[in-house]
């Protein structure tokens, strides 16, 4: 696929040969995640998160399909059906805790994945399309997670739906009719619940389709790497299988251990107690907060408090959408030809300030509004926009990057005198004995 030296698929037995000639699925898999996909040999553990995100999607789809068999999207019984799953369905509690915490697991992985992309310049040529498809997936994930959170029909589900669909009413003129159209009523009710369930079931499959497009787009230039230096020849790469399948196996193990700690020992720690109270349109919770993965955006939304030309609410909604949509334009905002931030001394500082900034936004997004938390969210939101729209273009223009390594293999070997031959080509090592026998 991506490089001239990528190994073509060779069927190992007659059945695979027969299948490959008629439906080349084995060839597709081999080229995508098998020995036929050469990957830079210097990837660090941050490159595990793509596969981990795929694993999280798979976990959500499988547990979700089974939960969907027991859940009913009836406003008068949705809450009860969730309790039935927890109490009466065999292993229902495992399914639900995995699905519920799995959403957080998915977002945690995707956030690390996104920040890895920001640090190592994965949005730059020739991987712009990979990055943009990733943002599309992220937006779809947010929609899916929001609608999924409404399904248990608890207090926070209901009032979260009320607040989030209220965003649309901020749009001048068409806003309120649009909101009523989307909800199927003036407030979330049966119509909203049923359509949210339907879409919550649909969107993961659309996400899967975009994931396929993303992997397709990725395999044209091939994976990026921590130096940001292009792959120059065969010794810069290793075949995905067995090298990165083995590394991902270890990564999956570690991720599942951390995930299981939440599922089995802290299943409530990421949720909100109010969602164990059945939805009641007449009682507003004292403190409406979204799930943790939306806190930074909620902070941006609430940071705009002054009607300056436009109403404050519209500013907040525009800024919240802009904060994600601007990621589509990163390629053009960052004009530095250097991909990896490791070689960009000035931008590196701003990058870590951004990481801190998003955490501050997260804190401000879940806190009770006080003058202090409000000021915090305003300063942090201002930095967020300044970082991407003002600082990044300027820094990339004036910064003097550090010298880049001459090649990937050079950076891996740290100046050792001899290069070990690429996999499959050694003639001396014991590990290469099968190759030597050819």
């Amino acid at each position, binding site marked *: 696929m991506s490089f001239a030296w990528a190994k073509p698929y060779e069927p190992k037995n007659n059945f695979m040969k027969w299948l490959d000639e008629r439906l080349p699925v084995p060839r597709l898999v081999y080229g995508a995640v098998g020995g036929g996909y050469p990957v830079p040999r210097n990837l660090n553990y941050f490159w595990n998160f793509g596969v981990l995100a795929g694993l999280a999607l798979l976990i959500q789809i499988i547990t979700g399909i089974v939960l969907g068999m027991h859940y009913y999207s009836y406003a008068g019984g949705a809450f009860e059906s969730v309790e039935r799953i927890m109490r009466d369905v065999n292993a229902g*509690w495992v399914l639900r805790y995995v699905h519920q915490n799995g959403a957080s697991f998915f977002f945690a992985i995707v956030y690390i994945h996104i920040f890895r992309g920001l640090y190592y310049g994965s949005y730059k040529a020739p991987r712009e399309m990979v990055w943009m498809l990733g943002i599309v997936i992220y937006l779809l994930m947010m929609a899916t997670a929001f609608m999924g959170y409404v399904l248990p029909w608890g207090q926070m589900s209901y009032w979260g739906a009320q607040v989030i669909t209220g965003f649309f009413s901020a749009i001048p003129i068409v806003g309120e009719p649009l909101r009523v159209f989307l909800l199927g009523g003036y407030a979330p009710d049966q119509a909203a619940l049923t359509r949210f369930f339907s879409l919550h079931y649909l969107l993961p499959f659309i996400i899967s389709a975009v994931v396929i497009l993303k992997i397709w787009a990725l395999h044209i230039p091939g994976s990026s790497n921590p130096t940001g230096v292009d792959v120059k020849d065969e010794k810069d790469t290793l075949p995905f299988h*067995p090298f990165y399948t083995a590394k991902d196996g270890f990564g999956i*193990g570690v991720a599942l251990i951390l995930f299981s700690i939440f599922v089995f020992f802290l299943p409530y720690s990421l949720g909100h107690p109010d969602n164990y109270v059945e939805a009641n349109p007449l009682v507003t919770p004292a403190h409406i907060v979204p799930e943790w993965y939306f806190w930074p955006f909620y902070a941006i939304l609430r940071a705009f408090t002054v009607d300056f030309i436009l109403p*404050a609410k519209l500013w907040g909604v525009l800024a919240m959408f802009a904060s994600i949509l*601007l990621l589509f334009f990163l390629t053009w905002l960052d004009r530095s030809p250097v991909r990896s931030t490791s070689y960009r001394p000035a931008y590196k500082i701003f990058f870590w300030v951004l990481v801190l900034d998003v955490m501050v936004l997260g804190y401000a997004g879940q806190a009770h509004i006080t003058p202090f938390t409000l000021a915090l969210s305003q300063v942090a*939101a*201002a930095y967020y*926009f300044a970082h991407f729209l*003002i600082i990044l273009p300027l820094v990339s223009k004036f910064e003097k990057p550090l010298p880049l390594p001459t090649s990937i293999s050079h950076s891996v070997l740290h100046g*050792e005198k001899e290069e070990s031959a690429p996999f499959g080509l050694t003639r001396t090592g014991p590990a290469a004995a099968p190759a030597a026998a050819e």
Partner: protein
Amino acid sequence: MVRIIGFLIGLGFVGVLLISLIVNAVDAIQNPPVHTAEEEFHLEPRSAGFSWQKPWGQFDEAQLQRGFQVYKEVCAACHSLKFVSFYELEGLGYNEAEIKAIANQWAIEVPSVNPDTGENSTRKALLSDRFPSPYANETAARAANNNALPPDLSLIVEARDDGADYIYSLLTGYRNAATYRNEAGEPVPQENRPGTGLHFNPYFANLNIAMPPPIVSNGQVTYADGTNATVDQMAKDVSAFLRWTSEPNLERRHAAGWAVMIFLLVGTVLAYLAYRNIWANAKREVSIRGPLEPAFQQRMQDQKDERGIAG
């Protein structure tokens, strides 16, 4: 072009945020936030040191049974338990015969239909029934309780911050508003003292709760296992029972968690070893040891040459 538009949008958002910041800062200085009586008098729940709160924690069956007895004799008069079925009482350590007897003797009967006349009637509870509610509907519940609705208790522990500790603190937290002093020694302001039908309790969010103190005197319940039924003991036991009703699978969850952990740890160690093995010479110079070592091969060859052996 993208950069120019982006720059202007960026300036716009930053500008409006800074205006908001200044307006709010001025406002906060001119009208400093005042502490409400709720903030001054509200107390954080006390920890009761429950057995399940550690990752390996399990319920204390005797405590759950005592808590169930408190629910049955005190709480059940007003509070439903609508998500819990009688058969689940197995988790408290009762056997089937005992649960059948409990269901059969439950003071409230299950709504039913008279099989002969088709009229609404009630029947005795079965194992598969959920706990019947003390009131027919919300209106009836409010009418009987001074317009306050006694919440369902099945999920009450999960539905409150600090869960069972909160329930325990609330049950033992009723005070006399007239004589109560907070940590700073201040009396409760007149407007925060309970009105008609309300009761002062500093653990409740707005300090005044509609529920009258449910557990008032030692020995209110005569425990079947002979435990001394102090107010504190009863509050603790019923909080434990309500923790169980909110998640009857807690013990199974903890046990499964440890099995999963051990499985994953072993698997991850094996995956790590496989990873290191496969990558053994991928990132560094390969140095071969043993008979295949180039120096050793050379030495063998030299010896053969010396002796005049061909090949």
